[in-house]
Every structure is written in structure tokens, then in C-alpha cells.
């Protein structure tokens, strides 16, 4: 399903309507084309999840949005205020938790802001901890605080919970949801986990062959739960679009098996 394109709207108006706009985005590495004419729009404050097989180019797209890589061709607009959370927390080991958050903050009283951000992710008491003494989940929360303290218009999350155990992951889901509701950045969450995508996002995209090949707007009764029949149907459609053949069987399987099937 192609993404909606508003050709008629004036440019300024169009920009205020979008956090991200990509048209004909091409990314090549050598003679390998990873993104091949990709179109994408994300509205301000929208929570979008991006699914795709391993190697389909999800991280590549994210890196282009974060301006970490130059794009080969096409048009791409993204807000100046972008923050990224990577799969590994990537905290500087030689800076205490709060210093990691305050790093590069050009505001008065950066320390107070950093401490407030730590409080928000429930780590107010670990402000002076060295990153090496934090658990994986805690480190990822610091990384999240570091991103949010910058008040991003666009928050990029590249499998931020991939390395966490199921329980920690669930509490991270609640945390991300809460933070998103308070700060309202547009979010692009890359994940391997169909359930995670369907639980958190307004819209789920599937990346394949270098383009957004499938899109699902999610209108599930709240609170969402994997037990809802609508949820199961949605998950089946997503799995099918990901090319998992035995969708029926995979749906019945535990979440870990579903993930394994995707890897």
C-alpha cells in the first residue's frame, strides 16, 4: 500500500504537518542498493513502528533520518531536533549517568535537567553511577533519558529493547509509552517484534525490497493486549506481509518463536 502523498498542499503548510517526509529515498553502499525509492511520512507526535527482515534496511533508514549517513538520492526532510537510542545504550563509560545525559546540552542548568530526566525514567537515585555498574535495562533507560532531555521532535529507536529480557522489556514498553504521551515527539521504532510494534504504535510499516511495502494503521480498543481477537488478526496480517508462511502456526506460538521466525 503506497503512502499517502499530498501534492496539492503548499510547502510551508505541508512541513508543519509532517515530522518526516521522504520521497524517492535511495541509499546505496557500493553497488548494493539498500533503500530503493522509499516514500515515508510521519506526522508530528505520531508513533510509528518499522518492521522488516534482518538486512532489509531498517537501520539504514534510521541512520539517514539521524543524518548519520548521507543519502544517495531522493528527498528527505526531518526535524533538526532528532534524538537516537541505539540497540546498545552507548553511554560514555567515563561519564556518570547524569553527565551522560547532560553531555552536549546547551542550556543553563544542564545538570538539573539531566537529574529531572533521570527521575522520569525512574533512576533518580543512580545519578552518580558509572555506566558499567548499571544493568542493561537501566543503561537503556539512561539512554532514553539522554534522548528525551533534548526535547526531540523526532525520536529514533533502533531495537532499543532487543537485548533485554521479556520482563524488563514489558516495563520498558510502559515507560516508552508514558514518556511519549508526556513529550509527544514523533517516534520511529525499529523492532523485530511484531507484538511490540502492534502494542505501541499508531501505525506499523513493513520495509521490504528497499521500500515501505505494507502499512497498517492500528485502531485497537485500549488498553491493547495480545489477547484481543483484533490484535491476533493484526499480528497475522503483519506476519504474512513479513513473509512468514506459517502465519497461523506462528501466531499460536510464544512470542519468542515469532521473533525467531523473523530473524
Amino acid at each position: 500500500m503506497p503512502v499517502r502523498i499530498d501534492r496539492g498542499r503548499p510547502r510551508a503548510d505541508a512541513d508543519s504537518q509532517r515530522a518526516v517526509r521522504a520521497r524517492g529515498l535511495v541509499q546505496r553502499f557500493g553497488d548494493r542498493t539498500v533503500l530503493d525509492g522509499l516514500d515515508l511520512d510521519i506526522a508530528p507526535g505520531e508513533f510509528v513502528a518499522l518492521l522488516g527482515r534482518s538486512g532489509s534496511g531498517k537501520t539504514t533508514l534510521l541512520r539517514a533520518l539521524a543524518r548519520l549517513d548521507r543519502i544517495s538520492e531522493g528527498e528527505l526532510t526531518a526535524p533538526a531536533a532528532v534524538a537516537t537510542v541505539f540497540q546498545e545504550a552507548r553511554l560514555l563509560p567515563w561519564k556518570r549517568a547524569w553527565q551522560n545525559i547532560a553531555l552536549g546540552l546547551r542550556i543553563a542548568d544542564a545538570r538539573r535537567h539531566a537529574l529531572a530526566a533521570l527521575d522520569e525514567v525512574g533512576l533518580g537515585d543512580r545519578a552518580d553511577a558509572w555506566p558499567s555498574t548499571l544493568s542493561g535495562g537501566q543503561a537503556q533507560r539512561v539512554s532514553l533519558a539522554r534522548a528525551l532531555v533534548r526535547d526531540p521532535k523526532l525520536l529514533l529507536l533502533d531495537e532499543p529493547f532487543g537485548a533485554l529480557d521479556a520482563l524488563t522489556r514489558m516495563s520498558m514498553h510502559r515507560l516508552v509509552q508514558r514518556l511519549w504521551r508526556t513529550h509527544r515527539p514523533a517516534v520511529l521504532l525499529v523492532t523485530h517484534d511484531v507484538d511490540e510494534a502492534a502494542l505501541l504504535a499508531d501505525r506499523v510499516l513493513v520495509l521490504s525490497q528497499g521500500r515501505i511495502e505494507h502499512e497498517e494503521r492500528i485502531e485497537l480498543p485500549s488498553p491493547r493486549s495480545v489477547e484481543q481477537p483484533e490484535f491476533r488478526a493484526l499480528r497475522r496480517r503483519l506476519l504474512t506481509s513479513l513473509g512468514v508462511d506459517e502465519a497461523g502456526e506462528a501466531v499460536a506460538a510464544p512470542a519468542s518463536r515469532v521473533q525467531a521466525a523473523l530473524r
Partner: protein
Amino acid sequence: MSTRLLSPLAVLLLWELGSRVGLIPAHIMPAPSALATTLSDLLVSGRLYEHLGVSLRRAALGLAIGVSLGTALALVAGLSRRGELAADPLMQILRALPFLGVIPLFILWFGIGEVTKVALIALATKTPIYLTLYGGIRGVDAKLVEAADTLGLNRLELIRHVILPGALPSFFVGLRYALGISLLALVAVEQINANSGIGYLINEARDFMKTDVIMVCLLIYSVLGLLTDAFVRMLERHALAWRPLMPSLRAA
């Protein structure tokens, strides 16, 4: 720690015994008790302080110059491509040069005074600092640099907050090497025509066949080595407090 002292103490005891019963001739190796007397004589007469002071000043000055030079070159080569092109090939050539080999050349250039001695120590110590720090800078985790980049750090901040702290552990490794090498270079330069310093004491003792003085001086070299290494380790513990402790260190 105390158990680590057991074997040296046992050796001392056997040595003393061997000397007392005449198994070890005094002109080959005087007894530990005799060495203690020699040491205290040297201390009381003030000769030791005087010569040790001279030696330490040589080592410290040479080390300071060598470390500064090595650090500066490593920063130039580590932080920019052009700097790398300019500095690294030269440093690799210099590194391959055995520093003891340049003694005759330095004597021709700088004479047989202090300049040659200090210059040789500086030449010897800049190499380990350069190699480790340059490697450390280039080895900083690119993912961390990238993450810091997304936080909007400018180049200077990136160097200050990410690259230099990341290279610091390597720098300390280099510093410990440099300290060891500075002592080695010190011994070498003090063999050539010195009229002060520990090396001079040793040469003089050789001429008068005073084995005890030679041995006391050697002991002092090794105590110097141990002390400076302990000092760097203390600095390191302080500066690298963020590093996770190895289980073995935690127990110590």
C-alpha cells in the same frame, strides 16, 4: 600481600646463612647484613642523597620531555589524517631505531654532559607514549563517537569528552612502559662518563672492587622502578575510576 613477601624473605635468610658459613665469598656477594651497613653508611654520609638526586633529576627531565613529545605527536597523528601522514611514518622509522645505538651520535652532537643524557632518556621514552596513545585514540569505539555526534557535540567537545578519555587507559599503559624504559636509559647514560649519579657510584665502586656498593645501587634502581610503577598505578586508579574492577583487583 604478606604471603607474597615469603619467598623473598626466605631467599634473604638462605643468603645470609650462606655468607655466614663461608659458602658465599664476600667479594662476590656480601651478606644482606653487610649490604644494610653499606646502605646506612651511604645514607649517613649523604652521598646517596646527592647522587640519587642527580639521577632522579635526569630521569624526570628526560621523561617529561619524552612524554610531552610523545603525547603531542600522538595527538597530531591520532586526531587528523594529515597529521597522521606527517607524523606516523617518521615515528615508525624512529621506533625501529635502537635508542642505545644513538649514544655515539648524541655524544658527537651534544658532548658528554647532561644534554646527551637527558636527550637519550627523552628519545627512549617518547616512543612507548606515542605508540600507545596513538593506538588508543584510533581505537576509541566508533559507536561511542557516533552516539556523541548525535548529541550535537562539536569537534573540540568530541575530543575532550569522548576521544581523550577513551584513549586514557592506553596512555597509562604507555606511561608505565616509559617509566621502565627511562630507568633503563638512565642506567645506560650513567655508564658513559658521569661524575655524579647512581651510575657514577657504581662505576666508582667497580674501580675499587666494592661489590657491596654496586649491589646497594642496583637495589636502589629496582626500588625506584617499583615506586614509580606504584605511583602510576595510583594515578591510574584515580583517573580511571569509571572502569569496572577486575575480580582479581577487587580482592587485592
